[in-house]
């Protein structure tokens, strides 16, 4: 019995930090409508800065002062970020905001390693809370008791802040109706900045307070952000009390989940999240959101199938690509195969994102499931390669069918957070279920059979499948199903009013995208000869997002170009610098701020403008007639 009580208290103590971070995220979202992906990075920065300060300054004052100063310093960095970056993207689509803040996260990860080194740092214990309290033969660290008390105190302080101060009233008003606050003559800019500062302060404080409990390391940002996303999905974005209740719930589920499913404790959290989503899609304390802003900017250029000439050009490009083995060496061919595989992966996400309007932040899950599907079939069942390639992706299909069912119940940022959380769950299963997946060591020795083993043969195989995937997805875009999917993306209301079951359509699209991603993963397993949990990691999901974005979200298959450019760049970059994340993150931020249409989108807009101006020059009569008709 005492054991369970202690377990419960440990859970409560973990909830404190989680609550701080989640409430910060919620407050920022409530006012600015930005889901700050970089919140995990600020949490991590808080921990690192606090580590340095508490090591540098001794004594109780040094410790507690260090924690507070660290949180304040990180909040100052947050203010800088808000003024320089976020102010430029408040009116961008959600996807771009998520991506920009994710780019920041990547940059911070490399900067942290650069400054503090790659090793875990163990901080000192909190003065005054070094010991443990005995409870029926069990030990409870007294610092845990401090954290347990801290949670409700912070909740109370926040409540007072929002209920009793003028600033709080303004924030609440802005949460209800942003334009109204602007109309009241309040300086909206500074309101946003101060809200962001408070949110970041809470995140950094959460990180700093972890020092006595946990080692500080450069992966803690992603770990916490996934948990925080789970918390806000359960509690409801924008609700502080929701963040509190859900943080406690998730922490307790983790604490007791370990006892029930020691290997895959995260399953329990997932089950609870699934139930909450079915019963209350906007979380326990959340309010239904107004329909999400459309993910891609409004295209006024309707999509068209390729003309005959364009088709011939595409075939010519394919023929040239197929001739590569006659001129290139093995290394180039291996790189070529990898690029072809990533073309498949990118177009699968592009289909979901651009055609379906569903920006998944966890698409790598289905890539990885396809890879593991192949590895398991090849190693355990010993099936031939063709059978593995055909059956392996079915694991991706299965995963997409299960997770997609829940994910499409939501849209916009909720969809993004949920897909990310799902991917992380799949990742931790691959990581923790050592007996089946080999855990961190992965599954080795998944080599292609003789007929596909040479680099040129494997290249042709990958290229052929990539071409097939692109063509099939294009056909689907222009099929009745593709139209129904785009219709649902454009206006779910109108779609439903003409008999379209939007959720079912989106679910189907999710499954299609997951299966194609699984196919890419299956090929990838053979290319590398092995699979690892990282094949379903967050950074892979983001790679895919960047490829789509780089190609152009509003295009039919810009992702093809995006994948080729990005992957080639990435492979080159990794060989050139150790700071690839820093460069990559900067690159992501840059695209979002300066280049949101992507390569193909920019080209299309250019061609369109030229065509328009030349046609209006040749027939002024027609344009004037159209104008008068309007």
């Amino acid at each position, binding site marked *: 019995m005492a054991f369970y009580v202690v377990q419960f208290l440990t859970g409560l103590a973990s909830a404190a930090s989680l609550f701080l971070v989640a409430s910060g995220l919620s407050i920022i979202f409530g006012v600015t409508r930005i889901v700050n992906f970089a919140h995990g990075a600020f949490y991590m920065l808080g921990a690192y800065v606090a580590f340095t300060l508490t090591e540098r300054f001794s004594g109780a004052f040094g410790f507690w002062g260090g924690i507070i100063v660290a949180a304040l310093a990180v909040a100052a960095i947050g203010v800088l970020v808000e003024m320089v970056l976020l102010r430029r993207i408040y009116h961008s689509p959600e996807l771009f905001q998520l991506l920009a803040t994710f780019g920041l996260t990547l940059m911070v990860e490399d900067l942290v390693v650069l400054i503090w080194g790659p090793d875990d740092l163990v901080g000192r214990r909190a003065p005054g809370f070094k010991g443990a309290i005995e409870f029926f033969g069990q030990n409870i660290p007294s610092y845990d008791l401090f954290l347990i008390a801290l949670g409700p105190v912070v909740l109370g302080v926040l409540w007072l802040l929002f209920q009793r101060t003028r600033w709080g009233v303004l924030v609440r008003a802005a949460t209800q109706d942003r334009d109204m606050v602007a109309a009241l003559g309040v300086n909206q800019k500074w309101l946003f900045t101060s809200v962001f500062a408070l949110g970041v302060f809470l995140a950094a404080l959460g990180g700093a307070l972890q020092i006595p409990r946990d080692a500080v390391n450069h992966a803690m940002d992603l770990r916490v952000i996934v948990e925080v996303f789970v918390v806000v999905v359960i509690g409801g974005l924008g609700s502080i009390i929701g963040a509190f209740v859900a943080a406690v719930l998730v922490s307790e589920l983790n604490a007791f989940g370990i006892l029930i499913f020691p290997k895959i404790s995260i399953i329990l959290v997932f089950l609870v999240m699934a139930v909450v989503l079915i019963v209350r899609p906007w979380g326990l304390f959340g309010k239904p959101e107004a329909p999400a802003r459309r993910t891609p900017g409004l295209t006024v250029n309707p*999509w068209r199938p390729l003309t005959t000439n364009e088709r011939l050009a595409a075939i010519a490009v394919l023929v040239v690509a197929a001739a590569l083995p006659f001129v290139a060496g093995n290394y180039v061919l291996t790189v070529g195969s990898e690029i072809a595989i990533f073309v498949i992966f990118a177009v699968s996400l592009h289909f979901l994102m651009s055609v379906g309007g569903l920006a998944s932040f966890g698409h790598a899950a289905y890539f990885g499931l396809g890879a593991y599907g192949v590895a398991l079939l090849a190693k355990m069942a010993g099936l031939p390669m063709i059978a593995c390639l055909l059956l392996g992706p079915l694991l991706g299909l299965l995963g997409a069918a299960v997770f997609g069912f829940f994910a499409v119940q939501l849209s916009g940022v909720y969809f993004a957070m949920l897909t990310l959380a799902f991917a992380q769950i799949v990742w931790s299963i691959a990581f923790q279920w050592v007996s089946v997946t080999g855990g961190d060591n992965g599954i080795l020795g998944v080599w292609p059979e003789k007929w596909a083993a040479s680099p040129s043969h494997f290249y042709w195989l990958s290229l052929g499948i990539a071409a097939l995937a692109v063509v099939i997805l294009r056909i689907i875009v222009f099929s009745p199903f593709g139209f129904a999917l785009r219709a649902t993306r454009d206006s779910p209301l*109108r779609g439903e*009013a003409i*008999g*379209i079951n939007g959720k079912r359509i989106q679910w189907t699209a999710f499954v299609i995208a997951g299966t194609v991603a699984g196919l890419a993963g299956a090929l990838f397993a053979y290319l590398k000869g092995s699979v690892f949990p990282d094949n379903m990691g967050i950074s892979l999901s983001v790679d895919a997002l960047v490829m789509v974005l780089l190609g152009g979200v509003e295009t039919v298959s810009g992702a093809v170009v995006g994948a080729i450019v990005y992957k080639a760049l990435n492979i080159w970059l990794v060989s050139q610098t150790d700071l690839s994340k820093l460069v990559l993150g900067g690159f992501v931020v840059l695209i979002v701020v300066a280049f949101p249409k992507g390569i193909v989108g920019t080209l299309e807009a250019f061609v369109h403008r030229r065509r328009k101006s030349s046609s209006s020059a040749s027939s002024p009569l027609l344009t004037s007639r159209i104008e008068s008709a309007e």
Partner: protein
Amino acid sequence: MSMVPTLLSVEGLTKSYGGVHAVRGVSFELRAGEILALIGPNGAGKSTCFDMLNGQNIPDSGRIRVLGAETTGKKPRVIWRMGVGRTFQIAATFPTMTVRENVQVALVSHGAQLFNLWASTARQARDEAGRLLDLVGMGAYAERPCGELAYGDVKRLELAIALANQPKLLLMDEPTAGMAPRERVELMRLTARIAREQSIGVLFTEHDMDVVFEHADRILVLNRGTLIAEGSPEEVRGNTQVRAIYLGEGLLYDARHREGASA
């Protein structure tokens, strides 16, 4: 008239939001080929009625039947398949598609082809879409991107979309809001003609009283969620209660209309 079957029958429809009684005990019937206007000041509950009729919104209580079949609480897509089309107060179309494609989607849906992954939509129901667009006077705009249309044209497109499943009942929430006066009259004439030819029942709301009195066979007057009058245009015009709460503010119609259009 009484030989014509009852198309829509509504009994005791009620909906409230917290303390606001948006719709209270509304009952009426609509016969095939009849054009019925539902009028009332802003916030009277007209849109809420429409939303309940097409399944967008679930009533607290009351019954809705279409051709005798219960539709209360059914999903919009199910009600659409029973032959109920609708247009929205703020027009809802698919802005990234061409005008023709907008109608094609509705036709494809009507033909139960939505899960067809292989065929080319371009060839599906092309002519049928063109015919519907011609019908609402949008034939010349068929290949234009819908996102570029003037608002009045979007409204006409919406009508074409709503006609795609050969509806028996058409629900039109402020079909002419945002249009120029001449366009308004044209659109309502067109709607009336289609309704008579195809024997479609039409329920519409409108702030423009000229349009209402010219086209409605019968008028329902809603005020604060309650029906306060019902009858022919002449009867409603003569009703003192209606005059008091509604027509008495007649001078404000235009101003209010402009508000509604910009909202």
